[in-house]
């Protein structure tokens, strides 16, 4: 297989994955970005969610070669310099997670959704996250984290425009 080049977390990366290798496995194995998790490998649980060319996608349902030329953000690259971004901080403050296995996909899906819907309310957030399975939390603490992020982002932009 020919080399592929793509941008991952702002850095140009290359690799030679065989055709059948999923983007999820490429990220985890070839690029050692193990933050993206495999929860089912058939596109239902959402643990493998990354942001590709501005959209949340299930990286277990893409071949690595299909991501050539794309711009990918994984959980490792969500916050500035590997630190916690606004959403992650709000989730920390809200005790959003327990075992952490669903977390990367959940956070990336929430981040993508908030990017397009910064004023979302609880029903929309629940629906947006209904394709990400969590077995530990019963979701309430995750929703609270997202709502807190919405509030803080709103206050932040209010401060900026004030």
């Amino acid at each position, binding site marked *: *297989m020919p080399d592929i080049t793509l941008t991952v977390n702002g850095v140009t990366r290359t690799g030679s994955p*065989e*055709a*059948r*290798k*999923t983007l999820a*496995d490429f990220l985890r194995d070839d690029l050692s970005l193990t933050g993206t998790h495999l929860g*089912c*490998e*058939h*596109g239902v649980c*959402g643990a493998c*969610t990354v942001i*590709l060319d501005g*959209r*949340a*996608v*299930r990286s*277990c*349902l*893409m*071949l690595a*070669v*299909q991501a050539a030329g794309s711009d990918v953000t994984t959980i490792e690259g969500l916050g500035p310099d590997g630190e916690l971004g606004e959403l992650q901080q709000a989730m920390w403050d809200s005790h959003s997670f327990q075992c952490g296995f669903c977390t990367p996909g959940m956070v990336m*899906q929430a981040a*993508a*959704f908030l990017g397009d819907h910064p004023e979302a309310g609880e029903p929309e957030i629940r*629906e*947006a996250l*209904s*394709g990400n399975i969590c077995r530990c939390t019963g979701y309430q603490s995750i929703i609270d984290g997202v709502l807190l992020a919405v509030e803080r982002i709103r206050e932040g932009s209010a401060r900026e425009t004030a």
Partner: protein
Amino acid sequence: MKLPPVDYEAPGTLSEALDLLAEHQDEASVLAGGQSLIPLLALRLAQPTVLIDINGVEGLSGVSRTNGWVAIGATTREYVAEESQTIAESVPLLAAALPLIGHEAIRSRGTVGGSLAHADPAAELPAVARALDAEFVVQGPDGERVVPAADWFEGYLTTSRGPDELLTEVRFLAARPGTGTSFQEVARRHGDFAMVGLATSVTLNSGTITDARLAFAGVSDVPARATAAEELLEGQRPTAEVFAEAARAAAAGIDPPSDLHGSAEYRKKVAAALVRRGLREAVGNAMRGSD
């Protein structure tokens, strides 16, 4: 759950794609969104020799309206179709069904053509296409052919597309004034495949129903038009009694499967309920002119 070994081609033009299909025929699987195909490969339920990735083929995506038809390129992403003003205005039934397809991340990659070529009878888009008599534009070695929806869906996951052909476009007639639509679905959870789904379109003409179309998802090996119910509705006033009669006729006309999620008996009952609900909503939309 890793994919089996497979070759991979990524043609840049339609003619390259067709050449590859001519060469590989049944040994090839066409890869568009991948949201249905890749799980099949991961589960090793499908083991094609080669994947023909058409995401890079020029000219296969986009939404346009010409001469009363809305044309959707086969590789148009579902989320693009969902955001399309043209579809919202001109094919409201499609606009109603699109948000129910899986979850947002699925629609980021899934394509309109891919879903219709995969032809899962429990999926939303086949039912919409069948209800609206969509036209399927297929390119092959002998040029282009246009297949009406009634002929497109041949069996379970089987369409009229020959192994050396490619679905390039799907066309929907723009909704006429006075048309109201509804997409109803009963699924185990939000975003799941429908146990039973129903695409409904009715046109009201001076307070009576004309051109009623009801197409089920999940009750057969193909999306199924409830023709007996449609005939019954023609020329009727939209009353609860009429809806109930249509529901009975629709349920009587299907022989749904039994599976882990619901028995045949269950699906028939739900089908009837969806007909009542679908007609109420579609007629309501028609009256409001809100579609």
